[in-house]
């Protein structure tokens, strides 16, 4: 653990580049909030406190004060009190759950007189700190069961509490810490399984309506994917290329047989053939496991069977576990439904607004779609619409690139940390921003399902701006105090 002397720390400098981008984002965000909440009938000044832009100004000023005070606090403070923060945060979430009034179906706001705070926003940096603190033990090994359990618990506890507050979007943000874990030694296989699970789910749901024999088209595609994955896994972990070829061969023989039967005008059941191939691959893997006494074959067999079970259950889960509005959002994103009045309304209008911007946009305060409230939540979650409509492709692409630069800068900052604490926290910050950006902008331009989370620094809201400011500036403080080599 690093205990730097006062003198060395004083020499360290704040990364002014990141601060500059931060300030740029916040000011641009402020202008866009003014544009998004601009009312044609009674236009008010950007400084008018009765408007959202005026309020945002207050949040900005307080955020800056907050940022500079955070820079004054010693790094060791965050390390020392990380767990305390965590306990306080969980307690606050519990209290919120109990006392919060119902605001638009969400029970996540603590109302303190004129100020409304969303504790879930602040939980982001607390979890990041806590995970960093847990990692910051000499020869910490993530894959030890005790450690892994602890980490999972640290993430899942606030996740569940926030889900109970009906803020599913924010809760999902906490899951982005998986990226941190990957950076810190989580096997790629687990990440691969996560990706595979999403892929299976999408395939099974998207193509569930085309039936091909025993299986639907989606399930069929997923089975093909399983067989190929199994072959690749054998090759990757066992270095047994012949086994891989044998598995692929089974599939190809089945395919050829199917073609032949079709040629002989015998009715073919593609689903049945796929199931037979899957069964044969499973039997072969089981045989290998017994024959060579290798656990890896067993794991691959488990992956194959587990994948198939997951596919079979995912349609059921989609139809029976998810809420109708969630089903609808997923269907709209997958292009299965065009529901411009209901669930697709948000995205439809947001795409119209962005699309109407053209190359250079309509100019500041000239956006008709956002002014006239066609896009809901346009100064909070859908603020990117205003950018798209008023600044066009040029403006919105520039913002995207700026965010890209911001993310790259965060990666380089995280990588130059000399302490595990700093690095893990850095990656925590990084994953949160990345998740927010990808999901929020993806949702606004219609390539992600609608998940209500804000666009960092741009969306209106005190809690989120404070939350992001704290998240970023604690990292900048840690970076400033790092030991130079």
């Amino acid at each position, binding site marked *: 653990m690093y205990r730097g002397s006062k003198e060395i720390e004083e020499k360290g400098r704040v990364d002014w580049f990141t601060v500059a981008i931060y300030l740029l984002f916040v000011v641009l965000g402020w202008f866009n909030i003014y544009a998004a909440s601009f009312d*044609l009938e009674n236009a008010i000044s950007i400084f008018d406190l009765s408007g959202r832009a005026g309020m945002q100004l207050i949040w900005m000023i307080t955020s800056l004060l907050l940022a500079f005070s955070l820079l004054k606090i010693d790094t060791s403070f965050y390390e020392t009190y990380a767990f305390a923060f965590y306990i306080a945060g969980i307690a606050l979430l519990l209290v919120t759950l109990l006392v919060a009034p119902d605001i638009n179906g969400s029970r996540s706001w603590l109302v303190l007189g004129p100020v409304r705070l969303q504790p879930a926003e602040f939980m982001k940096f607390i979890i990041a700190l806590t995970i960093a603190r847990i990692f910051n033990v000499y020869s910490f090994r993530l894959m030890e069961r005790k450690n892994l359990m602890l980490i999972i618990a640290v993430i899942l506890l606030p996740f569940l509490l926030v889900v109970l507050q009906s803020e599913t979007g924010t809760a999902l943000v906490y899951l982005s810490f998986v990226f941190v874990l990957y950076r810190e030694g989580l096997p790629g296989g687990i990440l691969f399984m996560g990706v595979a699970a999403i892929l299976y789910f999408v395939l099974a749901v998207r193509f569930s309506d085309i039936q091909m024999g025993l299986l639907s088209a989606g399930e069929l595609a997923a089975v093909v994917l399983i067989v190929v994955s199994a072959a690749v896994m054998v090759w990757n972990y066992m270095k047994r290329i012949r086994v891989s070829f044998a598995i692929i061969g089974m599939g190809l023989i089945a395919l050829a047989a199917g073609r032949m039967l079709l040629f002989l005008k015998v009715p073919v059941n593609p689903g049945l053939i796929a199931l037979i191939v899957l069964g044969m691959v499973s039997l072969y893997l089981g045989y290998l496991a017994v024959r060579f006494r290798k656990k890896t074959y067993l794991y691959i067999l488990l992956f194959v069977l587990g994948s198939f079970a997951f596919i079979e259950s995912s349609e059921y889960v989609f139809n029976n576990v998810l809420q109708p509005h969630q089903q609808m959002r997923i269907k709209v994103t997958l292009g299965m439904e065009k529901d411009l009045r209901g669930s697709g309304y948000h995205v439809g209008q947001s795409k119209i607004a962005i*699309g109407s911007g053209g190359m250079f946009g309509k100019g500041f305060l000239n956006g*008709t779609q956002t002014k*006239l409230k*066609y896009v809901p939540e346009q100064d909070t979650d859908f603020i990117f619409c205003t950018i798209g409509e008023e600044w066009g492709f040029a403006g919105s692409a520039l913002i995207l690139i700026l965010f890209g630069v911001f993310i790259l800068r965060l990666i380089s900052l995280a990588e130059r940390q000399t302490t595990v604490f700093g690095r893990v926290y850095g990656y925590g910050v990084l994953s949160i921003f990345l998740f927010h950006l990808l999901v929020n902008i993806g949702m606004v331009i219609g*390539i992600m399902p609608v998940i209500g989370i804000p666009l960092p620094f741009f969306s209106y809201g005190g809690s989120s701006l404070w939350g992001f400011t704290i998240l970023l500036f604690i990292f900048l403080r840690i970076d400033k105090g790092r030991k130079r080599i």
Partner: protein
Amino acid sequence: MIVVYVVQLFDLQILSPEYRNFADSNAFFRKALYPARGSIYDRNGELVVYNQPAYDVMMVVREMKQFDTLDFCNTLNIDKATFLHLETEMKDRRKNPGYSSYTPQLFMSQLDVEEYALLQEKLYKFPGIYIQNRTERQYKYPNMGLILGYVAEVDKNKMAADPYYVRGDYVGKSGIELSHEEDLRGEKGVEILLRDAHGRVQGKYCDGEFDRMPVSGRDLTLSIDIRLQAYGEYLMQNKVGSIVMIEPKTGEILCMVAAPSYDPSILTGKNFSQNYLQLEQDPYKPLINRSIAGTYPPGSTFKPSQGLIFLQEGIISSQTYYGCYGGYPPLGGRPGCHPHASPLNLQPALATSCNSFFCYGLNAMLSNRTKYNSTIDAFEVWREHIIDLGFGYKTGVDLPSEKKGYIPTSKFYTNVKKTDRWNAHNIISIAIGQGEILTTPIQLVNFAAIVANRGYYYKPHVVKVRKGAPIDTAYTIRRESGINPEYFDLTIAGMADAVMHGTCRRINMEPHISVCGKTGTSQNPHGEDHSLFIGFAPKNDPQVAIAVVVENGGYGATNAVPIARLMIQKCLMGEIMEQDRQLEKTMADRVILPYSYRRSFPPGRNGLISIENVQRQ
């Protein structure tokens, strides 16, 4: 990852124009500003058609809090059930696709002034209720419905043909309202408003920089004299037929009576569809303007034109005599004729309406091989003249749905006779306006005007002045008939003789008015002969030309002549002479409703409703 996002942005913003179009129709509400439709005056400046405000009750459902439905119903004089019915109609998105609870929706249309006043007084009690002003056509006289036409909501075809119109616009559907639609309607203005997601208006786009003010419709002054028109309709009540009168010097139509007709005011307001249906189902077809769309064999009224052609072609002279022995001798006394002196020349032939004379004339023309190579050549020359005299084609009057009548071509006869070796005797009945010949009353009166003018005419028209613009030059060009004026003098002398001591003695109004005329009794397949008359007066300085057709009215002298007498009197003297009062009453009371219209209708449905609608003067 960022590449995927930029690509999606590029696709949305640069490659897909539909989003931009969507955005415009989303946000811009182009509110039409409706101009006042032009008013219509008669030739003496009497206001005939004007606009009166009508009131629609509009409802904004979102604003209807603490609404006293009972009081509202009482005010509008409807019961609760009607209220609920109207409300369901309004909210039914299938019937009213533009329904929104945030914007004013039409609840009940066309309140009259009293209902409006009552509601206006209590309006403060009914939040969410608004009154929208519209204008509605108003008619000062129950006359000339067929000339004026009516106005109704624009239909799909019209909208497809002319992008000016949008759903809900009102457009002229017949008569002047249709033919002068572009004058009367004016130019719609537009106000570009910004509309929010709930359809509420949020203000003007660019402070109205792109707005356009509406241009009011153009007022029209008709050449019709409303008093004369009303009088004609009075005389023609319970008859089927037409009276058209023209000022020969200008081609202005003074009156255009088509009977039966209808009161134009019944085709406005709430009862439009019901009344229209009734008119449409009326067996006497009151929606047909018989003055321009009724086609009749002209009978003997055709004879003056024949005389003119024969004179012009040098077939006969004023001293050419033909014999008549109760019929046309070469064809064994057919077509028949009535007793008169024989042989005779053109002037007495016109006066007595001798059939044989004109049959001889036509035969002499078509058989003349020194002048023409063949019968067909001769016939085509004849046809050219008859067309120059205004028959066979539409006169081009400024009213829609005119018919052109029928003047056969030589080809027609060749086809029908299956040989080109036909001769004058095969087609002899056209000489006396029978056979294949069909004319409209407006063609007949136009011909009378040509005679009155001694050889020229102007296209007949009903619109005399377009306020702020000249009338179409088509109506101000003098057109020649191609017949020398001196031949007209002879024809006129014949027509004057007909009035003095010939077939139409009953129209003789000497010494007050010297009329020239020609009767017609046209045989037709629908029963009794049609009674026809054409003429003009005064003889030396013609002020008016007239054509009268009374369907199935028997001899020309029986009905058409007395009606023409009264009409000319009314036109030139302003009122009816004491001695003709009895005649006036007799003619007005006479009922001649041809059976041919009725026969296909079940008993009890004699459809006299609309005829009774023609109000007595």
